[in-house]
């Protein structure tokens, strides 16, 4: 039977841990609020951009711009898989899920893959296992800015247009609500027509042709790279909000579990104490009757 002192020490240790998880939960909650606000604010831009591009893509030939041209999937083709993980752990299955989804894609695509990694956790996982890594951006979630997304977008575009890769996929956690995140695997490049045609521009406006100022070519040259950047930016913000949501939930569960542990330990400790007292009484009584 463990001694009373040991048990008391255990309880104290668990209490300390509980305090830490509680504090982390609180921090995650406040960061989540900000991250959530940012993603909510960024969504309209991404949505409108998709809509405008949808209206545009319906009218033009994809051959007009290299970012629209898709290349066949063969054993020799190459894909750049960008996996967005968190920089930190202690967030439940957040990183595991996205890493698993990325790994599955690598295994199932049947073509050569290189990895683009965002976030320290992904770098640690894939780096340790010797996967081919094309680029690695970690530590950007501390202070997430549009420029970070622009950098990643440019790297992706460069790899695609230079012919180094034939496709760019984006794997990230989407923020659905505070308690649910979903892993999304999206094609970033080439820009799929089915994807941009899904916009609401629809039949009413599809017949009329736009005036372009300057030329359509010029607008595409600016709009498409920007679109890619915005998609990456959105993925980063989604992932960031999802990270804090996951961390908050994980820390909440941890706090609850440690509470349970404390109460069961305290109960056990009291039983031990009582047993010790009873034993002592018996000793005293039997000692007295022996006299």
């Amino acid at each position, binding site marked *: 039977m463990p001694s009373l002192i040991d048990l008391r020490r255990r309880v104290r240790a668990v209490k300390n841990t509980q305090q830490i998880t509680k504090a982390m939960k609180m921090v995650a909650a406040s960061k989540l609020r900000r991250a959530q606000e940012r993603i909510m604010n960024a969504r309209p*831009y991404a949505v409108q951009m998709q809509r405008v591009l949808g209206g545009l893509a319906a009218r033009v030939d994809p051959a007009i711009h290299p970012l629209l041209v898709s290349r066949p999937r063969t054993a020799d083709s190459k894909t750049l898989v960008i996996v967005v993980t968190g920089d930190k752990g202690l967030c439940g299955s957040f990183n595991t899920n996205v890493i698993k989804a990325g790994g599955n894609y690598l295994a199932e695509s049947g073509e050569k893959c290189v990895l683009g990694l965002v976030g320290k956790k992904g770098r640690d996982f894939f780096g340790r296992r010797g996967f081919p890594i094309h680029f690695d951006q970690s530590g950007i979630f501390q202070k997430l800015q*549009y420029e970070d997304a622009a950098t990643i977008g440019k790297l992706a575009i460069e790899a695609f247009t230079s012919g180094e890769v034939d496709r760019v996929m984006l794997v990230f956690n989407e923020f659905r609500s505070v308690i649910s995140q979903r892993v999304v695997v999206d094609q970033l490049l080439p820009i799929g027509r089915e994807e941009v045609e899904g916009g609401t521009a629809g039949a009413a406006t599809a017949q009329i*042709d736009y005036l372009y100022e300057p030329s359509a070519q010029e607008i595409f040259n600016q709009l498409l790279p920007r679109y890619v950047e915005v998609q990456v930016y959105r993925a980063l913000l989604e992932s960031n909000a999802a990270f804090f949501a996951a961390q908050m939930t994980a820390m909440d569960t941890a706090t609850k579990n440690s509470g349970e542990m404390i109460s069961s330990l305290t109960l056990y400790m009291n039983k031990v104490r009582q047993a010790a007292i009873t034993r002592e009484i018996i000793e005293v009584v039997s000692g007295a009757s022996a006299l």
Partner: protein
Amino acid sequence: MAGETAGSAPTLHLRIVSAERSLVDAQVHEVQIPGAEGYFGVLPGHTPLLATLGAGELWYRVGQVTTYLAVALGFAEVLPDRVTILAQIAERPEEIDTARAEAAKKRAEERMNKPAIDMDSERARIAMMKSLIRLQVAARARTRG
């Protein structure tokens, strides 16, 4: 806010979004947009147009009230009944930090005047443009009270 018809002039649905947030989502009577190749005004029923934005002052009018915004770099989609502005930067005059814009202007000026060896003169030019437009819009807000 003016209704769709209700006896008043026809309106446009104006939507201005920047990468960070959505700024305007309203029915307006007239918009002036700083296109990359010059300013252009849009009234309801405008022919469909897709334009890139320069840096400049955008205004829109609802009834008699005109509102100014600073916008820079992005795209404008014009349809007969709605206008969508996707701007990289969009700010309301009251949000503009005049001191910062002034400082940025000075910095950009210095950079442009110095013989550029390792300096990115294109970036300096853009910075200059942005700060100028911010100052202009901010000044507009001040003169109106």
